[in-house]
């Protein structure tokens, strides 16, 4: 089932503005800036991946270096298969919209995501549908996140443009929207545009 293949994780922490999901497989978090969704039927929440971490399963126990006598990095995992179970990959998303009754809204949903809700990577058609409106850019610009906003906005646009055949037009349209939103800060605009061109 296509849906299963797109399933990338499960919500383990949620708030109104975002949710954190744990990946089913170590290191298999969706790329920075990609559009993911989770369900709290009948509402579907859309989020943009802004951060991914891989840490020890137990917060107090830090991993130790093991590769001194191994020939390659792969050998480490091979000789200590338990590692895959002792580490976890998580990714954090920022909620940028939701779908209710098959209607898209580019603003926050009434309720946060449910814990253990499955998180799916949105297929290109859905990315296209969602990015018909650039209203989500405003949420991104106004968010307070540990990562640089310039990086996040540029990454999300780079991800989204892959759903389009005419990537250039999409990026120009998005750039124009950004130019309006960032009318007071030309330097930031320049930084973002420099990261999405090409």
């Amino acid at each position, binding site marked *: 089932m296509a849906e299963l293949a797109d399933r990338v994780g499960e919500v383990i922490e949620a708030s109104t503005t975002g949710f954190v999901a744990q990946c089913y497989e170590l290191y298999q978090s969706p790329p920075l800036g990609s559009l993911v969704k989770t369900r709290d039927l009948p509402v579907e929440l859309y989020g943009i991946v802004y951060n991914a971490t891989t840490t020890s399963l137990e917060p107090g126990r830090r991993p130790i270096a093991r590769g001194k006598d191994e020939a390659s990095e792969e050998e480490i995992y091979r000789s200590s298969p338990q590692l895959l179970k002792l580490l976890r990959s998580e990714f954090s998303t920022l909620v940028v919209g939701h779908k209710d009754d098959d209607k898209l809204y580019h603003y926050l949903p009434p309720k946060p995501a449910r814990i253990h809700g499955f998180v799916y990577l949105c297929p290109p058609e859905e990315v296209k549908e969602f990015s018909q409106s650039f209203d989500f850019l405003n949420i991104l610009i106004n968010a307070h996140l540990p990562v640089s906003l310039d990086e996040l906005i540029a990454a999300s646009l780079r991800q989204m443009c892959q759903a389009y055949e005419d990537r*250039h037009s999409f*990026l*120009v349209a998005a*750039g*124009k929207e*950004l*130019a*309006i939103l960032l*009318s*007071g*800060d*030309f*330097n930031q*605009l*320049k930084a973002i*545009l420099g990261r999405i*061109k*090409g």
Partner: protein
Amino acid sequence: MTQEDTQKLGIVVSGSLNKGVEVKMDSSASVEDMAVGRYVTIDGPKRRFFGMITDITLGVIDQKLTLTPPDVSDPFMTEVLAGTSTYGTLHVLPMLTIGGDAASLLEGPQPVKTVPSHFSVVNLALQRDVELVFGSEDERKFYIGTPLDMETKVCLDLAELVKRSNGIFGKSGTGKTFLTRLLLIGMLQKGTAVNLVFDMHSEYGWEGRNERGQKVKALKQFFPSKVAVFTLDEESSRRRRVSTDFVVRIGYDEIEPEDMVLLRQTLNLTEPAIEAIYQLSRRFGKNWLQSTMEMKDSEESGDLLKELSIHESTFQNLQRGLATIRRLPFLMSHSPDNPVQRILEYLDRGINVVLEFGRYTDITAYILVANLLTRRIHTQYRDRTEKAQGEDTAPPHPLVITIEEAHKFLNPEVAGQTIFGIIAREMRKYNVTLLVIDQRPSGIDDEVMSQIGTKITCLLDNDRDIDSVLAGVMNKSEFKSVLSKLESKQQALIFGHAVPMPVVVRTREYGSAESYKDFIPSEQAEKDIEELWD
């Protein structure tokens, strides 16, 4: 407007009725495709406005952009910034409302009394909008040219035009003569007025030449039965193979002191010399000029001068001036025919008269003849009009007198005295109006300028000239930029009485065989041929 061919330019963002509105351009429209003088329509929620672009400016949303410009070699960057951070603004002057309210639907375009509301959509005017404003060719309207970048015809209401004095201005070589010829043809074609043309360079009667030296047809070739060519210089006309209808000769006895006043500057006469002319004419009567010239340096004449208290140096000054006049070959002591009467006869029959000056392009000859003839014709017209008013009969046919180098007749010093000043001011009361052609409109008296009904101006670049042409026009500064940006050929700004709003036109083609066809209606041509056989 949901038509496919509308081209959206932008939206209204600010403005006032006096100064015009600012239009922020859409990113899809490029400032480089715009041009001042182009027409736009503004679709307000209640009315539709028709206006003209008078200025185009570049704007940036953030001043930092001007200080640290983006990398222009990056097409993506420029594409994104175009229309958002950097944008063009159009300055549009709304002129008319078309459609929308009852009055403009019934009576056609109305002058604007308000501005479109915020964010009204601005489109490039469509052909049919322009047609709605400038009408189409009919028995009153004459197609003079097309608006910039459009194929629609701009038509002048000639019946309205001849009711006032009109002016054609422009630097030398900008096409004044072609425009005048076109306008004269229009008046002949529509029969709105009968013309008297003082043709200084002999280019309106039979044929003229364009800048490339090719011959172009003039009035008589189009309307042989409606145009008579008079000449002052028979020899020149013969050499140019122009068949003339009458050779004008003027007798000394026909020159009155008033005719001399105008020549004061050109003949370098002093103020006392002019006074002396009046005194001498009182003394000698009709033959004053001949008698004055014949006065020798004798005791007898010395006594006479003393009696009239004319200083000797004044008299010498006067004689020098008169000697210049005397050298004009078309003057003779007594003319065998009366040219004024002849011209009037022709004009009465509805035949237009072109008076060629041949070789005598000297300004003295031109001023003398034009003033002399016009004064007498005007008097006759005045008498007839008054008579017609008294007897309740039809007034004489409207007469349009065309003069070149108009500033010589209408400069502030003489405008008060010359007949042209009077005609320009009294306007249509006596059914006589002027068509003045000039390259230095600043030399024309302000009062006369203000009475000119329709002004057609080609390129002018002297500030004083521009100011004087645009005197009294609302939003003068807007038109200033339009006027100084006209191309030096085939473009003119028309404003005033005969057009609903100021308009920049590319003048209709003139000079090719194709263009000639349109000037003569085919039935007219057939009629002319029939008349020949009768």
